[in-house]
């Protein structure tokens, strides 16, 4: 009788209800406390932040108004959007088509290319950025051009990881796609480019877009490449906020509230996009990992 009166547990629930609740509660607290503190600080007057007040005397929304100018947030967001936008579009076009070819066609050196695509994703970014910096300095010197500090210098550097990433994600998406449609088009006498443009593109476009979005997000979160290669006219949001922090820490009353407000604003769109698209990203990575 006792078992009947209790709600039957779903057999797929491996954890018991008590364990499940405890684990969930601990995790949620661990996640939410720092995030709420972030929001709390962004609404606390700076003088109270630096004296360690946890509950502000009044909610101060002024940070959200002042942050746009003093921190370089606005120009940072503009620069980041432009740089990451160009990077991901380039990676999507070049890497997307390559991803299709690599997935469908056998050619000599295919195995090496695939393995190096994986390798390039894992190579520390400074390994490529230092030489790029070196080459750009000498181009600057020889041709009397300004290279470092332009958008393009950062775009080139971001392509070192986003090009292999996009190619790999598109490739593993195409891998899991049946060839039926392409076969049918081929029987109808369609040429190679027609098949690519009319048949493959409409099906694979979402995957390419998602891959490009993740290339965008990776660039948005980067600090080291941007620190090396940007100048005042191309500082990304990460660089702008980091130098703001370093300046503030020397001051008497550091504008931590402003920093927190700016961090929240620069994180919000990225977090939103990531949460919305994570399923596609993971299925891309998992698709490549689970096969074999």
């Amino acid at each position, binding site marked *: 009788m006792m078992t009947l009166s209790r709600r039957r547990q779903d057999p797929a629930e491996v954890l018991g209800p008590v364990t499940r609740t405890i684990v969930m509660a601990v995790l949620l607290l661990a996640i939410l406390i720092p995030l709420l503190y972030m929001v709390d600080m962004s609404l606390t007057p700076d003088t109270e932040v630096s004296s360690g007040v946890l509950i502000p005397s009044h909610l101060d929304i002024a940070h959200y108004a002042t942050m746009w100018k003093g921190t370089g947030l606005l120009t940072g967001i503009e620069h980041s959007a432009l740089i990451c936008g160009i990077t991901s579009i380039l990676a999507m076009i070049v890497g997307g088509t390559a991803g299709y070819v690599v997935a469908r066609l056998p050619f000599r050196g295919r195995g090496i290319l695939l393995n190096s695509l994986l390798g390039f994703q894992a190579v520390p970014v*400074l390994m490529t950025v230092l*030489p790029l910096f070196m080459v750009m300095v000498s181009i600057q010197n020889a041709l009397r051009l300004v290279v470092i500090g332009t958008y393009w210098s950062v775009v080139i550097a971001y392509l070192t990881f986003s090009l292999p990433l996009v190619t790999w994600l598109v490739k593993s998406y195409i891998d899991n796609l049946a060839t039926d449609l392409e076969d049918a088009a081929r029987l109808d006498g369609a040429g190679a480019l027609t098949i690519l443009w009319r048949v493959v593109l409409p099906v694979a476009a979402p995957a390419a877009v998602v891959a490009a979005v993740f290339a965008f997000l990776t660039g948005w979160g980067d600090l080291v490449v941007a620190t090396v290669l940007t100048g005042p006219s191309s500082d990304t949001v990460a660089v702008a906020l*980091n130098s703001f922090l370093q300046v503030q820490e020397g001051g008497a009353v550091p504008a931590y509230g402003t920093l927190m407000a700016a961090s929240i604003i620069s994180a919000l769109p990225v977090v939103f996009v990531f949460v919305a698209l994570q399923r596609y990203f993971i299925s891309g990575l998992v698709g490549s990992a689970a096969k074999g």
Partner: protein
Amino acid sequence: MVPTAVVQARSQRRAARRSKKRRPSLYYRDLRPLLYLLLPFVILLLIVDIAPLVLGVISSLLRLNIKTLKSWTSAPFAAGTNYHNAVAGHGGLTLSGLEATWQTVEFAVLATVIALPIGVLAALTVSHRRSRATTVVRAIYILPVAMPLFSTAFVWRMILFPHSGLFDQLRGHLGFGKSSNHLLIGGHSFATLVVVDVWFAWGFIYLFALAGMQAIGHELYEAAEIDGARAWQKFRYIVAPALGRLMVVAVVLSTLNHYNNFTLPYVLFGASPPSSVITVPVATYLAGFSLFNFGLADAVAVVGLVGIVVPLLIYVWLAGGTRIKEQRG
């Protein structure tokens, strides 16, 4: 106790493998013109990845400082000086390249080992129930890993800041004494780095684990239930086998991510971090842009590659592969 479930799981996996093999391969002569599409890709890859890597290795053998950098093609050959300095920790380095490498390996492995059970446990709490509440919990679970790393580092610097930070304030309120100066400088900074890293990095493992768990058929759990399986047995005989390979990839990938993480140590501990948190990327950056010895920086980076050779090879071996060839053979 649960042979039915085990057998079912095995046959499910075998069937999946078989259906993959039966997929028709596409090898059409008339598609060969598409190979020209690889040309721009390969050229770009050459410019952004291959050439810089080769150049990096070459320049690790040159005497490259702020003066010789502008005409690096005629920079003096330094033979093994940079490597000697990188390994021995001379030439102004705070830490020898080997120490930095070892420390980074410790950090990457420790962070992954701690994040793994958290990620898997988290996935278990939400894997098989679909309700509005779980949807919200799932979204919250990935907030830390979705945040840009610099934001995460800012918040944690605020939290751990001596006196004014949340950590010290709570300590004070709970009566544990007030200050903990050693979190961001000195003794405990390595532990701080690991803890903050785990705070966001378990989400990566969690996403992989959740994807793996959702691919498990419900009938396996039902069979296990009928056989009277307990929680641990369900995990051991149903969940673990289904996750196996996926978790290996997740673990290797997240180890590599930790190893190459520059932003977290650099922002969390400021521009001149204590030596116990100087990881390979930070050491490379400092050699390049605070000592302005670019040859040395490249040498440090090359020495640091030693630490990722093994995980990198495992990753390429597991995730890589030449599918078309496999099917033809």
